[in-house]
């Protein structure tokens, strides 16, 4: 990977003093993950450019795993953009090679170290996850002029579209130390999905290098979140192993999909209204032992736990990862013994018959059925309505008709990429009436969210009640 840094401050060759690197002499440095080379392709009184060329050892990356443990997947790839794209490795190289300048020291030209000078930085390939707008949001508030050109993926296959990499030029007039600090933090933030930290104590580093500018940055939350990326558990690694060629990073995909859906539905905080309605339905059923099937990260469980009516609460999900998050969100490990006794989290599937689900009075199935392939619905119906057979069942699902009201949703597209279908009101009611008739339940329908006179509510809800024996 290559970073070039040009100044037109005169004498331009003073850049050499600032960086403590002689413009006349190329130098190389050993790094834990490869080598860094510093040389000056041009060095005149008017204009001086320094190049930082980092050679990342692609085999070493995989073989002598650097970086936090558990940062599995990506580091195991030999086919990896790390040797080519600007990333956290560049930050490390900057800190190692230009350490003095990064800390704002300059013995020979102390006044220059704090002086705002014209600087231009060029990246030959900078990954910008979040796209060009995000790039602008990161650098513009810091006073940079940003020029970015997106690189094509492969000109032989134009249908594949463009890559996530940009050739980027940043121009600004500011002290070199500040520019290096910005790069140190923001390059990995742009890179986002793969971090290769060489040391630990990331929070301290972030605060140190963000001193004086991060606290006031309008994107500070996004910066911190991306900089301190969470880690994965072993089971998730196992799931990652099973990922199809079609979606190489399921966790990232899940996160993106959920964000997309939330973004679509955000205007009316639909999720809250949905949970409120489901909670009311369960509460009104006088059920004491309740199931939350497809509990996800446990938002409904959190509500249920706060109400003493529910003496036994079981959350079930097919995603092991979601259950882990639910466990954290509910502080399961720290719940008092009496509370803990009320709640159980189960890993399971709604298309396998499950003895553990028998004997409950009510079940909530919130935004779940649309994630099942239509041919698998028959199995789901039997698992829930024939075998688990709670007295009350509350099912919610998107109302497809309402989708025309979402500005950000292209016509014909589902709200979530994992949705296998989205039903209109007649489709959902047809299904629910059929299920109720086949399994001996009665059903009524309720609206969730603001009702549109033409296309109905954004979410539809069915309440099933088992016929008395």
């Amino acid at each position, binding site marked *: 990977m290559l970073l070039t840094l040009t100044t037109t401050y005169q004498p331009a060759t003073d850049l050499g003093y600032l960086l403590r690197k002689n413009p006349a002499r*190329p130098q190389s440095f050993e790094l834990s993950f490869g080598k860094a080379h510093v040389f000056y392709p041009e060095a005149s009184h008017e204009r001086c450019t320094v190049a930082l060329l980092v050679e990342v050892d692609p085999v070493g990356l995989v073989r002598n795993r650097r970086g936090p443990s558990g940062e599995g997947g990506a580091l195991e790839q030999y086919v990896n953009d790390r040797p080519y794209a600007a990333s956290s490795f560049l930050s490390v190289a900057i800190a190692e090679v230009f350490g003095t300048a990064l800390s704002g020291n300059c013995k020979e030209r102390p006044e220059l170290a704090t002086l705002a000078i014209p600087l231009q930085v060029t990246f030959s390939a900078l990954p910008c996850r979040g796209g060009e707008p995000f790039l602008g949001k990161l650098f513009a508030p810091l006073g940079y002029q940003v020029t970015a050109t997106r690189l094509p993926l492969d000109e032989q296959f134009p249908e594949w579209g463009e890559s996530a990499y940009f050739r980027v030029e940043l121009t600004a007039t500011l002290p070199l130390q500040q520019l290096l600090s910005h790069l140190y933090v923001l390059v990995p933030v742009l890179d986002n999905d793969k971090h290769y930290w060489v040391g630990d104590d990331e929070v301290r580093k972030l605060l140190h290098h963000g001193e004086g500018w991060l606290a006031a940055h309008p994107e500070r939350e996004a910066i911190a979140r991306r900089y301190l990326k969470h880690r994965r558990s072993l089971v998730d690694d196992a799931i990652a192993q099973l990922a199809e060629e079609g979606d190489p990073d399921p966790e990232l995909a899940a996160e993106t999909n959920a964000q997309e859906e939330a973004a679509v539905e955000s205007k009316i905080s639909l999720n809250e209204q949905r949970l409120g309605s489901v909670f009311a339905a369960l509460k009104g059923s006088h059920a004491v032992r309740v199931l939350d099937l497809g509990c996800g990260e446990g938002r409904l469980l959190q509500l249920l736990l706060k109400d003493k009516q529910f003496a036994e609460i079981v959350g079930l999900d097919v995603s092991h990862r979601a259950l882990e998050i639910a466990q954290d969100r509910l502080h399961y490990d720290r719940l008092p013994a009496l509370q803990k006794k009320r709640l159980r989290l189960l890993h399971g599937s709604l298309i396998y018959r499950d003895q553990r689900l028998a004997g409950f009075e009510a079940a909530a199935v919130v935004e779940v059925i649309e994630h099942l392939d239509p041919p698998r619905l028959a199995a789901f119906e039997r698992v829930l309505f024939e075998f688990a057979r709670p007295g009350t069942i509350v099912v919610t699902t998107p109302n497809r008709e309402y989708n025309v009201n979402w500005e950000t949703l292209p016509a014909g597209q589902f709200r979530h990429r994992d949705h296998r279908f989205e039903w209109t009101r007649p489709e959902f009611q047809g299904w629910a009436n059929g299920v109720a008739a086949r399994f001996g339940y009665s059903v009524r329908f309720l609206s969730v969210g603001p009702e549109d006179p033409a296309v109905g509510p954004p979410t539809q809800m069915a309440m099933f009640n088992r016929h008395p024996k």
Partner: protein
Amino acid sequence: MKITIPELSFVVLIGVSGSGKSTFARKHFKATEILSSDYCRGLVSDDENSQAATSDAFDVLHFIARKRLAAGKLTVVDATNVQPESRRAFVEIAREFHCLPVAIVLDLPERVAHERNQTRPDRAFGPHVIRQQAQQLHRSLRGLEREGFRHTFVLKSLEEIDAVVIERQPLWNNLKAEHGPFDIIGDVHGCGDELHELLGQLGYAEETAGNWKHSAGRKLVFVGDLVDRGPKVTQVLKWVIASVGSGDAFCVPGNHDVKLMRKLRGREVQIAHGLAESLAQLATESDDFRTRVADFIDDLVSHYVFDDGKLVVAHAGLKESMQGRGSGAVREFALFGETTGETDEFGLPERHNWAAEYRGSAMVVYGHTPVPEPDWLNRTINIDTGCVFGGKLTALRYPERELVSVPARAKYAESRRPFLPVETPAPVLSAQQQHDDLLDLADVTGKRIAGTRLHGNVTIREGNAAAALEVMSRFAANPKWLIYLPPTMSPSETSQAPGLLEHPVEAFAYYRHAGVPRVVCEEKHMGSRAVVIVCRDEAAAQRAFGITGEGIGICYTRTGRRFFDDPNFEREFLQLVQAAATAAGFWDEFKTGWLCLDCELMPWSAKAQALLKQQYAAVGASARASLAAEVATLEQAAARGLDVAELLARTRSRQQMVGYYIAAYRGYCWPVNSVHDLKLAPFHLLATEGKVHTNQPHTWHMETLARLAGGIILATPFQVIDLLDAASEAEGIRWWEELTARGGEGMVVKPLDFIVKGSRGLVQPAVKCRGQEYLRIIYGPEYTAPANLERLRARGLSAKRSLALREFALGIEALERFARKEPLRRVHEAVFGVLALESEPTDPRL
């Protein structure tokens, strides 16, 4: 004194402290068979004499006793047991597990016990304790039988105790040593003419005095209900009594038989359900004959376990926990089955469908409830086809599993519950297929051990099963389609040849060392693994797979996911494969309605679109841009006279390698606008109706599948190499070099036979040998730089190879279970196992 006890007994020793129970137990039973209350006291309290620990100690003792009896293990309780309330728990436990409680009482004079206790410092209690225990014991003696002990033995002196010999007797139902072959006959109900015809068809002939014999020594088994309703009850009884008496037949009792016996014995029973017919017919017989009939029925054993436990026959069926056991409850179940306590619209008791829950390994053959057609469900089959109601009399041939029937000559009685529907539309799905519509989580979750024919037991770890559950639930196709998942494949050992990681020499050497003289080399296509199931028509899909309304087949990935998202596209694709199979005459040739093919589907870009964009092309794009800029900047520096020559040369060489890399992945990509842009290369004809073709050599698979070639289907080029002939081997190497020089992925080397077992067990079913350029998309664009290659040579294959064998064995196991028409959960277990194993961490580059 000889004490004879049933082989599965719950033996309760009774005797005061110091009566010598422990010594007695040690002498006659295995250490693991004895549960001592003192020992259990020690387990829970560190003190074998702690009376305070008694309650906890007995909890432990009861728990272990339950586990042992559930597993069918004789168990002995070593405790004083002098009070009826302490014994009651043991009688209850014996009943729970349908085994017989046996009491052995050591009734020595108090003095002997007291003297013995005096010599033991840990038993410093006075004579009053022993006296009290002895009094309780003596009060108990007469009541033991009433408490439920079927066998009671009282030993009154040291001499008597010393002289005891214990003999373990097999239960009457244990006929495991009888291996058949058998012909099992359904409910006869006095249908003598039909029985005569059926026995004739089965190859039996009537010899002296009504004794039916088979020329090849086959034996008859009657599932009971010989009598009532029909016209020839006496004749049927005479035949069966004679044939059982001569050892040519076995018979288990039916509820009608038992009721007749009770009536003949003079008991008060209601004359209904055809009993009147039996009595009328027997009225003309002698008293002596009626007594013989009653004795015969009285002696019948509730059920039989035959053929090493592989076959169970009981009149109304028998659940697993009762098989081979003897108790009143077992007899009740065998005679009447289980009822839910409710009655149906005809006023008959509603039956609990025990067969739907059956998970046993033994085949259970039964009758009792008339059905229009016998239908397998979870290894059970009901062969009562209602002959007396105008249906037919059916026999099941074992082990052939063939059904032979003769139609009723008349409708001799009217069934209260009409068993033949007024109109008889063929049921869409068989009982098993309907049952299989839903799998049970308990059959896949947690740590599991799956038995395979090829590779013994394969363990599935809990975490891997959890990962598989998620993938199976969220993405997989209808599990009824998933009869196979392909195994992973190991590469050849690492080559030491300059510039190479893999080379055929190592693959050939592997098989030669494993004792394989000839191998097949098949071109390895670079696409995506696909399993294709295609049926002759939708009706065939329904018959074989129990699937309706999902078309004529499926194409799925290595994780059981539908290959194509668009159903129309999939249909078009399957029609092309179906047409090829029809043109090649496969349906008739294999007498099948379906085929299961193991294939590679190209282009790679068809399925790997996202991976190509996010990873392969992305790396290429960033590498090209970055290296071009690096070279330009270095050239600029060189022009200034800086010494960057070495770095420049290295960077240029990296730029060249990246160029090769991009060319490599591009070779496996082309746009797919219609189904005709695909290429399908089948390489295994895995299975057809009733057959798994693993008995055929790979040359057969190649040649047979080549007949499908044309249009989108490719015949895979292959070579047979003689590993004992250097020239042949050289030819194989040359072929590989040619393939890889053209940009091919490489080749797969397989032993000629599909399954090879060597001295160290199963041999790898295939080993891949990949080309230099292809490996750039595995090991990275710059892997051929000498410094990189040297380090990459260090790679261990053993984990991958072990995984490949386990997955291969499970995959073939799944197919074989399917071909044998086992319940879906059994097929699914193996398929689920492959998916779970795939989640084990292994080096993904291998």
